[in-house]
């Protein structure tokens, strides 16, 4: 018994010593410590990478910024991971997973001195802001490109899980394609998993087998899909990370990149300056949250010119995506004539536009 007590005392002593030593080492103060939580790997050429690249940009732009990055954060681990980051000095937390919203909110309520910025949710508090790109509008341009490039008039769209925003992406994509090519159909497939890459490849295969020749996706990592499409000699439209172009040297058309770097740099600077304020921010091409990726070699010049011209109109606010009348698959008018749906409606989709083959559940 006495031995056990002695061991315990020794252990506690060691802990105390280490804590002191640790404090001494961390003398040099960084200007801001940013904690980034990713649900997947930082170099997935997709969703996760778009955020990782963005914080690297922040680090390059603001001297003294220190990053704490946690990859593959499970939902159940999110809260304690954020607490750990805060213990390590993080004053700005970027919980970049849809499911991290509530864990982050719980942590935010305890740490009013830490700024939280969640992408894609809806909750807003004094130290908890929300931001995302208006991909539901911008995908229209991608649809236009796809509609101009397809030969079979069948487009494929692969989505991880059916959620309102993603249905919106697909709707915008289809509306864009249909605007330039009335005969076009968009086939929508859900994999109902994040990260089962074999299944994603199988989904791409299924679309190819059904005759689709331009395929895009809203998945965490597009690599499996793009490579399957490329190997079959079909066209790819990228989404999320601009980096995904390298997987489709032949079949790349263009893509919509999520580019948070400038916005997060500005936000981080505001946190340092003490001028940060909360908000619910949705921005698209004009605000720099999204960018059109470089065009692939297969794209003829007239298509490039057309898309770029459209993009200019978009940025200037001259063009909109969801202009009534828009009918759903059953032919019911969902957006009345004369009505225009904007950012605030983008999460509301539980229906698909006429001409999309697939189900909205």
């Amino acid at each position: 018994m006495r031995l056990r007590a002695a061991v315990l005392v020794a252990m506690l002593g060691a802990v105390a010593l280490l804590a002191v030593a640790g404090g001494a080492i961390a003398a040099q103060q960084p200007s801001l410590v940013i904690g980034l939580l990713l649900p997947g790997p930082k170099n997935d050429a997709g969703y996760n990478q778009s955020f990782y690249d963005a914080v690297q940009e922040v680090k390059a732009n603001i001297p003294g910024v220190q990053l704490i990055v946690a990859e593959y954060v499970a939902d159940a681990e999110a809260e304690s991971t954020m607490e750990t980051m805060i213990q390590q000095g993080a004053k700005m937390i970027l919980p970049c997973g849809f499911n991290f919203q509530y864990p982050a909110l719980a942590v935010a309520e305890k740490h009013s001195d830490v700024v939280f910025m969640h992408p894609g949710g809806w909750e807003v508090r004094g130290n908890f802001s929300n931001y995302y790109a208006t991909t539901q509008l911008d995908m229209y341009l991608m649809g236009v490109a796809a509609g101009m490039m397809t030969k079979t008039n069948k487009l494929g769209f692969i989505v991880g899980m059916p959620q309102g925003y993603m249905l919106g992406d697909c709707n915008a994509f289809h509306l864009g394609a249909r605007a330039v090519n009335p005969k076009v159909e968009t086939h929508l497939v859900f994999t109902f998993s994040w990260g089962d890459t074999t299944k994603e490849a199988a989904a791409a295969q299924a679309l190819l087998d059904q005759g689709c020749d331009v395929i895009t996706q809203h998945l965490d990592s597009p690599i499996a899909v793009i490579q399957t499409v490329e190997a079959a000699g079909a066209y790819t439209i990228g989404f999320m990370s601009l980096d995904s172009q390298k997987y489709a040297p032949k079949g790349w058309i263009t893509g919509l990149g999520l580019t948070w770097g400038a916005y997060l740099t500005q936000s981080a600077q505001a946190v340092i300056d003490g001028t940060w304020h909360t908000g619910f921010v949705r921005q698209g091409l004009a605000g720099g949250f999204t960018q059109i990726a470089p065009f692939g070699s297969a794209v003829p010049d007239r298509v490039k010119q057309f898309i770029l011209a459209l993009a200019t109109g978009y940025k200037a606010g001259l063009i909109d995506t969801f202009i009534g009348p828009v009918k759903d698959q059953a032919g019911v008018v969902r957006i009345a004539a004369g009505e225009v749906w904007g950012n605030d409606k983008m999460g509301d989709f539980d229906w698909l536009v006429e001409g999309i083959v697939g189900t909205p559940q």
Partner: protein
Amino acid sequence: MVRALKRVGETLRKRWGLGAVRYTVILIVALLAYGLVLLIAGKDPIKAYVDTFTFTFGSAYGFSELLVRMTPLLLTAVAVALPSRLGLINVGGEGQLYMGAWLATWGAITFVSLPQAAFIPLLILLGFVGGGTWAAIAGFFRARGWVNETITTLLMNYVAPLIVGFFIYGAWRSRVPGASAFPQSATFPPAARLPRFFGTRVHLGLVLALVALGIFWFMLERTKWGLKMRAIGGNPEAARRLGMRLGLYFVVVMFIAGGIAGLAGMAEVSGLHWRLSAGFSPGYGFVGFLISWLSGGSAIGIVTMSFVLAIVFAGGSLLQITQGVPFAAVNVLMALILFAVLIRPRLVRRKA
């Protein structure tokens, strides 16, 4: 090296008994081996261990998080240990956990206006029944001699999350106006959330787990019933000849075991997350199997190993941040701990 370890083992056994020796030696061997793995991967094992230790024991918060992590592990471990006394192998803790959470969620989002005093017992009941019924199916098949429970529970692990998925993508999907419909249930009303203690995330689930463990220990060690279970586990044929109704034992014990795993699921959704989402369990059911196996089914062993694995998980979460070790690497450490037991060096040989 081996001889030195044996000598240490001998001394420890004289002082503290065999159990302590077993766990200490297993842990030392596993930690050394994992240190080697980290070293090969180009990481600093000493820093890793020191960081983990200071983080988990260095602050009240870190320590409270260990208790939070321990809660589902204790329950899923008991869910495996209990039927193992009967000779039943329950690999289905994960599925039972999901079904417990599923039925509890149904209660939480249906009877929204109940007061907390009625709500919490109801959730406990529903969690228990959800997991228990799921496991009793396997017990029933086994009792009839149709198919053994190992393969049934294993297969049913994969069905349960699909049932949860079916509901949270369908009928239970929460709709927040102006926002995307997320695949998760509505938020539980405050009365349907397990109380938390001392401003930490430690919740009533821990108490439930300890009570379940206490009952488990008492039943098996101090009652006639426990003795009978042992008799059946030791020699089912003889027990059958003595007129014991094995089938009934199989079904009832699997029901209770599944119920306990179901409580783990209920405690996770109602104590921590307050809503049901698809991936709420990072494999607690499987880790529970591991813990039960490591502890040889003893109550003290379950507490000890749950605590150790809580540290392992906390460490995994931390090392990812401090040294970029993938969280999945904790699986390597868990495997090494298990190997250390399975290889059964002489000084820690199991009785069975």
